[in-house]
């Protein structure tokens, strides 16, 4: 019984509760203030209404930013997978010298501060080479997501036995056919994990995207950040609640397909 007894350890229990309060309670207050009928961000809310949800959905900068962010996140994730999976194959299956170094190179966007990368892309690509901001954002987000694609699908590939693909080849399948029918299905959990992680990372990103905004193409988190700084009304609370609801949907999809804990277990190691 000692395993469940630990839950009753008073000090550990108190710390754990404090941790959950800090993680969760502020989010609940966002939801609560979103339903206010008043026009200030105060608690307790003055009356109940859906007014601010209506305003958020009718506020065109937010809606345009939602479309831009979705577009960017989907494209960057797809590109990162299309570019990253071959890299994973080359690293794990190819005969190359310096594989560790190569993998380290592809993981390097994880260790350089994103704000620093954002500054570099802004200065060198947008100002220096006059690239438009969508192209710059797409390049930057794709490079940022490559580590996820390489590492997470790599973990799946490590579990797949190369002998199976060789057997398919031996039975007469072409290299492409052998890959598509044998290896690709084994990569499925890794592809889904990397795809979900990549999408969420790109959609929520602030530091990398921050300097790469223009009036024509702005991402949602940066638009919300600017709005909060200018005015202090509950519309952002309503927009935040809508983002929260969408995130819950993504979480449920993640749980149903590969399992929540698995997706996030892979990226830190």
């Amino acid at each position, binding site marked *: 019984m000692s*395993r469940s007894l*630990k839950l009753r350890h008073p000090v550990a229990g108190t710390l754990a509760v404090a941790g959950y309060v800090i993680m969760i309670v502020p*989010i609940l207050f966002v939801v609560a203030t979103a339903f206010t009928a008043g026009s200030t*961000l*105060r608690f307790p809310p003055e009356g109940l209404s859906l007014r601010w949800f209506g305003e958020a959905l009718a506020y065109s900068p937010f809606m345009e930013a939602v479309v831009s962010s979705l577009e960017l996140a989907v494209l960057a994730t797809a590109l990162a997978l299309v*570019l990253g999976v071959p890299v994973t194959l080359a690293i794990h299956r190819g005969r190359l010298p310096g594989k560790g170094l190569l993998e380290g190179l592809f993981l390097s966007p994880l260790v350089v501060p994103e704000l620093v990368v954002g500054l570099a892309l802004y200065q060198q690509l947008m100002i220096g080479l006059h690239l438009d901001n969508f192209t710059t954002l797409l390049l930057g987000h794709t490079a940022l997501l490559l580590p996820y694609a390489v590492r997470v699908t790599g973990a799946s590939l490590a579990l797949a036995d190369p002998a199976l693909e060789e057997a398919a080849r031996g039975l007469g399948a072409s290299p492409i056919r052998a890959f598509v029918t044998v290896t690709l299905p084994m990569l499925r959990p890794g592809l889904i994990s990397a795809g979900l992680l990549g999408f969420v990372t790109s959609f929520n990103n602030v530091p990398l995207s921050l300097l790469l905004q223009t009036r024509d193409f702005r991402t949602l988190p940066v638009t919300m950040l600017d709005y909060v700084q200018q005015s202090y009304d509950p519309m952002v609370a309503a927009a*935040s609640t809508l983002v929260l609801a969408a995130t819950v949907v993504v979480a449920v999809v993640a749980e149903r397909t590969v399992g929540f804990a698995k997706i996030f277990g892979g990226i830190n190691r």
Partner: protein
Amino acid sequence: MRARSTLLLLLPGLAFLLVGFLLPAVAMLFAPPGVTFAQVIERMGAMLTDPYDLGIIWRTVRIGLIVTALCVVLGFPIASLLARSQSRWAGVLLALAIFPLLLSNVVRTFGWLVVLGSNGVIGQLLTGLGIVEKAPQLLYTELAIVLGLVQLFLPLAVITCYSAVAQVDPGLDEAARGLGASRTRSFWTILVPLSLPGIVVAATLVFAGSVTAYTTPYLLGGSSQRMLSTQLFSYASVTVDWAAASATAIVMTVLVFLVSGISALAGRKGATS
């Protein structure tokens, strides 16, 4: 796989990595437009002697250390309780701890404006109960930044510690308890030392995240509580001082690399001893 086809698989990804990350980063650090590398170094030297700039660096490091300590102190108990519990609620609680990782930082940080703002939950509570006459200034303080960053990075600490604790054989705890050790003693002599590599990884991730985070110091610290990240943004976009922006970027990157390097060395040493 032949060498040529391996190379073909690598090249497109490599090209994106170079154009979308490596080349711009190197060019920005060493040769920003119209500025020589010597000027960047000179600006960095000025930064490391100027009391205002040093104050920002020190605030960034101090907040990073406090947030790291708090995340380990709060995150490890959560991880060990969840990893050792057989209750069916443990899965739900684990999901609840991981879920915030999926949620936008802006949304999570915005919550603290509601809690700490002048009309916020804590202010209303304190004045409503007659404890204080005027709500204390909680927003735009270092405390607000620390709270915001702990909220942001605690899930990362929990999940990293969780996988470390889960790898420790529960039989060891039971053996220690069977031999008469108290629960506290088995926690400190078995669980903590055996999960130490995971704790070090968690601490490194949290520190690196805290000293480079932008949203939290921007929303909760304002202009009075500048950190390296908010200062970097202001150099790059308000004053357009490329030398200062590059110098700040170098300081920030070196800080992260230094801590990651030390932790990797500590991890290697721990593995061989």
